[in-house]
Structures are given as structure tokens and as C-alpha cells.
């Protein structure tokens, strides 16, 4: 964790990448059923659910972070339960950061998948059912592969958005090296202490990294869409 490039420690960068990757995986797993339900439900509660999912887009990260801090803190509803279960607190830990990031990036995962599911032809699914596929089978063998671009979009946006988060992390995670000191916090730190050189190097690294990740995913996306 103490590999360095120039005068900059790579640890925050690696931590950010790790956080974004874990968050993306978790969000695809929990976002898929939410997106599927939103795309298929005739329920009159759908707008309410949609509004809740979209809240993190509108709320200032500090508001979100504040509530998460209360909820995840050792005396909060989730936090106290976690302390009982594991003996350690959720706040100011990597696990706590993952939970906060998932809430923060949820709409960016759900919306691309939802719109991909919504553009599926219902009759194609009906054909799959009449061809002997159960609803779950048809979902995995037809709906998912047909919506692959929605999944790629969800992954790109979740990853990028988590990489770029700052406010929520600051509120929930603090600044513990190797545990919660992600790259955006490290850069803020460097600027605070007037270490502009280090801030420059780290920012440039993040800039290049973000660009390459996005470029890579868009290229993959293009490949898929041409098949």
C-alpha cells in the first residue's frame, strides 16, 4: 500500500479504484431487481419508488452523508446492529464507505438498466415463456443478454460516479490512510497543506485513469452494439 510515484503515495488511488469496483459489483447485483421491477410494474407506487431511487442525484452529498453518518454510526439503526454483529463500527471503515457509495451511486446504476429493460419487447419475453423458459430463466437467458448495453452503461456510470465522490466519503469515512483515504480526499488534503506538487500529480493520475476507464468501457460498449 505504500508504493509511490514521485512524491505521491499510490494507496489512495488504489483504494478509490477498489471502492469503485466493489460498489459497481454490489450496485449491479442489487440494482438489477430494482430496475426490473421499475420497468415492469403497473403499480401506482412506481413514481414514489422512482423518486426515492433518484434522490441522491438531487441531494447535496453533505445531506446524504449526514443521514448516512447517523444511520451507520455506532448508535444508528444499521450501525448498532453492525457493531453487535462484528464488534467494529461501520463509520470510518471501508465497508461503511461501500454502503455509502452504493446509496450515493444507486440512481446511476438503476436508470440505464431500467431504460434497457423498458425497451425490451414484451412479446419476445412471452415467446421465451411459451418456449418453455420460466420467468427467471427467461430473465437471465433473454432479458439480460438483450439489455447488455444497459448493464455496461450502469457499470460505467457507477464506477465513474463512485470514483468522483467526495462529500459523502468525507462525512462517513473520514480520512484514514489505507482504510478510507480515497484519492479525492487525499487531493483535498494536499491542497489544504499547500502541497500543490503532490496535488498536481495525483490529480493528473486521476484524470488519466478516469479517462482511460471511460474510454475502455465506451469502446467495449461500441463493440457490443455492433454485434
Amino acid at each position: 500500500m505504500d508504493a509511490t510515484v514521485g512524491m505521491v503515495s499510490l494507496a489512495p488511488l488504489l483504494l478509490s479504484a477498489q471502492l469503485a469496483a466493489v460498489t459497481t459489483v454490489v450496485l449491479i447485483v442489487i440494482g438489477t431487481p430494482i430496475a426490473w421491477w421499475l420497468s415492469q410494474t403497473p403499480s401506482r407506487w412506481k413514481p414514489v419508488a422512482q423518486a426515492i431511487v433518484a434522490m441522491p442525484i438531487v441531494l447535496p452529498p453533505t445531506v446524504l452523508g449526514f443521514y448516512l453518518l447517523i444511520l451507520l454510526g455506532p448508535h444508528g439503526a444499521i450501525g448498532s446492529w453492525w457493531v453487535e454483529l462484528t464488534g467494529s463500527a461501520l463509520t470510518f471503515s471501508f465497508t461503511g464507505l461501500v454502503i455509502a457509495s452504493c446509496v450515493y451511486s444507486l440512481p446511476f446504476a438503476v436508470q440505464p438498466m431500467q431504460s434497457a429493460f423498458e425497451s425490451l419487447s414484451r412479446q419476445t419475453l412471452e415467446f421465451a415463456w411459451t418456449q418453455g423458459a420460466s420467468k427467471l430463466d427467461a430473465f437471465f437467458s433473454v432479458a439480460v443478454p438483450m439489455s447488455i448495453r444497459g448493464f455496461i452503461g450502469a457499470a460505467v456510470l457507477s464506477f465513474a460516479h463512485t470514483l468522483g465522490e467526495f462529500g459523502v466519503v468525507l462525512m462517513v469515512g473520514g480520512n484514514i490512510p489505507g482504510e478510507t483515504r480515497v484519492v479525492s480526499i487525499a487531493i483535498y488534503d494536499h491542497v489544504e497543506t499547500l502541497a500543490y506538487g503532490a496535488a498536481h500529480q495525483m490529480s493528473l493520475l486521476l484524470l488519466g485513469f478516469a479517462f482511460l476507464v471511460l474510454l475502455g468501457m465506451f469502446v467495449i460498449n461500441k463493440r457490443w452494439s455492433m454485434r
Partner: protein
Amino acid sequence: MTNSEHTAADSVISLKHELRRGDFELKVDVQIPAKGITGLFGESGSGKTTLLRCIAGLEPGLSADSRPVHKRRIGYVFQEPQLFPHLTVQKNIEFGTRRASKQTVNPRRAIEMLGLGDLLDRKPGGLSVGEAQRVAIAAVLLRSPALILMDEPLASLDQRRKEELLPYLDRLHDELSVPMIYVSHSIDEVSRLCDHLLLIDGGKIVGSGELHEMLARLDLPMLSGPNAGSVIEATPAHYDSDYDLTQFGFSGGELFVPGQYDTNADFVRLRISASDVSLCLTRPEKTTILNILPAKVDEVEDAGPSSALVRLVIGSDKLLARITRRSATRLDLKKGDSVFAQVKSVTVKR
């Protein structure tokens, strides 16, 4: 469906479905033969597709069958072919086969029968609608269903493509034992393909019976309008190359049809539209009409303000003639009268 698992052994399939949607009410309780093709004929909005969807389990209506769609073993060919775009033709066909509990149709035979040999490695995106529909039909066959539902499978094709696909459907009819319900609003398609006919109007079955019997009825408004006509099974006997005419034999005599038809065929279906038949009390002489058949009047029924339909018996076949009410009165046509039917045109359905 009572129980599609057993329909192959039973001689009938029971259809019992109820569904209410807004002003529309579907209420069906009817039995159809468990073999051959049953035509479901009706105007648009009469509930044809809704009934099919109920049978397949795709509608939440009241049905005797509570099993989920995928356990019903009912194949569904949609009007627009619904293939899986991410799979090759081969994989599309195998999709149902892999999920079937038993294999009743040989995959190679189905692929050959529907002429798909060259398409297997293609993706559905590169197929014409007609090709895609053939793939869909093969995929449905190889799912080994107990009943196949076809919802106007030709409706999204132009006339030329229809003509291309119809012979494939003929082969299914001739070579497969799996029963089929074929939805159509084209009496031509129905008389070519079907053995049994269900008439649906306003969500209710208004007539059900063997095709020839149904076509010969005069009391069904749906079949006594412009659609009125009869279907006759005939055997091609002889081809006259001098005049390019094929002679067909049937129970009531002979019919000449322009063109050359395969004289090795056991029998073909001839369709004679009621408007192409006129009547004469004495044998017409010096006429250009080629086909003149002695017949007995079976029934006369008004079919509109100016026209009447006459059902004739010729041999064991029945023939409809559309005449004016005025002629019916003038000739005083009644049951048992001997007449001569002049047949102006005959279409060979297959």
C-alpha cells in the same frame, strides 16, 4: 385447456376461457379436434388473439388450466416473428428444445422441412420477415408442444412472401400430427390450410365444425357475405397439354382447371367462390363455360337485399352459388330441384 399433457391421446381439446377487459368480454367453451388444423376465423377485434393468449396462459383470465405458461407445452407463433436477437438461428431453435421434456419432432427434419439449412449461423437481425417466421415456426415445432397456436403468421408478409411461406405450412399440415389453431381473417388461408373451423364474433364462438360443413352453411353471416364459397377435395386425373388444362375428378364429376398440376398427388383442395357459380334449369349448350355440373338444390337462403345463396349437392360434395333474389323467385328454386351449375372459376389451393 383441460390438460394439454393428455390431449394427444384424447380425441378433443377443450377450450374454456373467460376474460373481461373494459367493455370486451371473452367467453369461450368449445371443443376442437385434437388433430389437424383448426382455423379461428373472425374480424379484427372479435377476440381471436385474446383467445389464443388465454389458451397460452399469457392473459390473467379465468381458465381451467392454472399452470404457468412455460409448463403448458403450448407453442405460440406470433404475428411478428419474435426471435432472440442475441442468438444465432441455430441457438434460437435450440432454445425450446433444451427446455422440452420430450422430443417428438426430429430437429433435422424440421430444419429441412422449413428450408433453414443455410440460415443456421445467421443472427435474426439479418433475416427477412418471412425467413424469421420460418425460424420461429421451426423453434416452436422443436419445443415439442402438445398444441401449436399461430396468430396470423402471414399477416406481416406481402403477397409474394405469403405465397412463399404457404407451402411450408401445407407440409406441416400434411406431415405433423401435432394439433394447431390457426388464426386468420383470410378465408383463402383458412380454406387452404384448415380442417376444422371456429368462428368468433364479439368474444363468443358463433360456429364450430368441420371445414366443408361450415363453408356449406347458409346461416352464418360471416361466411355468407363476400367470403361465401366451397372447398372440394379432388384428384388430379389428367393433364391436357393441347389446351393446358388439368382435369380433376371429385365425387360429383369432373372439373377442368387451367394450368398443369401434379397428377401424382392423391388429392388437392379446390376452392369455388359462390359468386363464380351460376345456375341453369336446363343443360346449357353452346356456352363458353367449361365446367357444367348437374346438381340438386339443397337450400336457398336470402343473403342480403339483392342476393341469395343456394346450396347445391353434387355427389357427396356441397357447392354454394350466389344468385340474385330476383332469379331465385323467377326460377322458383326450392329444395330437391335439379339444376345445372355453371362454374366459372376454380382455384387450386394446394
